[in-house]
């Protein structure tokens, strides 16, 4: 009896030793998938400044669907396409936008995040960013159909890292199909927003 008790206690002690790291973990180690340097862009743009922005109706992470035309007459829209959830650069871009909601509001602008990832993937990824103020939609199925309409679907099936500013009349006023490996400058985006009436 005493020997069994001792054995059990040893087992518990060793479990504590091994499990403590798992319980507390390392906050710093994110689930970010390392990506090598990619070709800057890999698509042929189909829209330009002055064109009406192609409309869409896509499923949103928060539930339901979101259409671009919903905002016509009410708000300017920044469409932020990012290539893939859980990858570098993307993992930084939206958390940055997440703390400057006031700058978008000051310019009567809504931000819509969009990628070709499916809803569960986008959900898990945006949850890791904390509470986000802007809607995120999935261009997963039919695969990349919206990215294709804009001419920013890359040959490997992800979209470019691209920003479009669309005014309240639904017209494209700014296009940045950015080097996929780097993050677009936030100050430039805000300055472009300020140019809208």
């Amino acid at each position: 009896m005493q020997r069994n008790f001792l054995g059990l206690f040893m087992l518990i002690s060793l479990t504590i030793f091994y499990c403590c790291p798992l319980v507390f973990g390392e906050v710093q180690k994110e689930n970010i998938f390392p990506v090598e340097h990619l070709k800057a862009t890999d698509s042929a743009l189909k829209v330009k400044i002055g064109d009406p922005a192609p409309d869409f109706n896509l499923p949103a992470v928060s539930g339901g669907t979101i259409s671009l035309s919903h905002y016509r007459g009410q708000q300017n829209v920044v469409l932020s396409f990012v290539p893939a959830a859980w990858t570098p650069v993307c993992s930084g871009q939206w958390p940055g936008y997440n703390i400057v909601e006031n700058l978008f509001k000051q310019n009567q602008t809504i931000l819509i995040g969009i990628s070709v990832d499916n809803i569960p993937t986008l959900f898990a990824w945006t949850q890791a960013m904390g509470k986000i103020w802007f809607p995120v939609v999935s261009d997963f199925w039919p695969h990349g159909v919206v990215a294709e309409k804009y001419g920013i679907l890359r040959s490997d099936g992800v979209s470019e890292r691209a920003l479009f500013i669309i005014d309240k009349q639904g017209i494209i006023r700014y296009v940045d199909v950015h080097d996929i490996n780097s993050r677009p400058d936030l100050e430039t985006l805000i300055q472009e927003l300020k140019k809208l009436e």
Partner: protein
Amino acid sequence: MARMAGTLLFFIIVACVFSGCHTLLADEGGGESTPAPEIILPRPTSPAHLTYLGVPSNPQPLSLNEVKAKVIVIEIFNMYCPHCQREAPQVNSLFELIQSRGLQDKIKIIGIGGRNSDFEVKLFQEKYNIPFPLFSDPDFTNTYKLLTDVQTPSFFVLNKGVLGKRKIAYSLTGGFANPESFLDTILPITNLK
């Protein structure tokens, strides 16, 4: 019976020591004394920040060697990093704790925004009401002097020794568990109370 109690006590101690040794939240480098690199930053223009650092206003870049305080805590952060965003109130609390313990002349805190522009650093400062100076480091020039594998937030404690040279007394990757334990860790290492 006494022997069994002794064995049990031994295993309790072993379990506690091994689980306590493992860092709870972050990788720590304690007890190091590598010479601190010279960090050169854009000189603040805000009178409050110049006064806080105890440096004059002039058109020259600021070397941290000009800062007379014994200890400088550097946070490498990124405005886009959710960990840094979550950590910001903790670092503010550390600033307040240092003030409340009367150590504000001996320990200064600064933040360096790796690959952030002035605009982005300013947004971070305003968003989190950060009371200590933040600096942009758009090309990672200063960040790379401190770490090659950039993870944010990272903290470096630069301590001035008896001969006036600064060394990296402590470093931390990731957030600290709470401001009190962080301060209690660095005070003995920097020979402060």
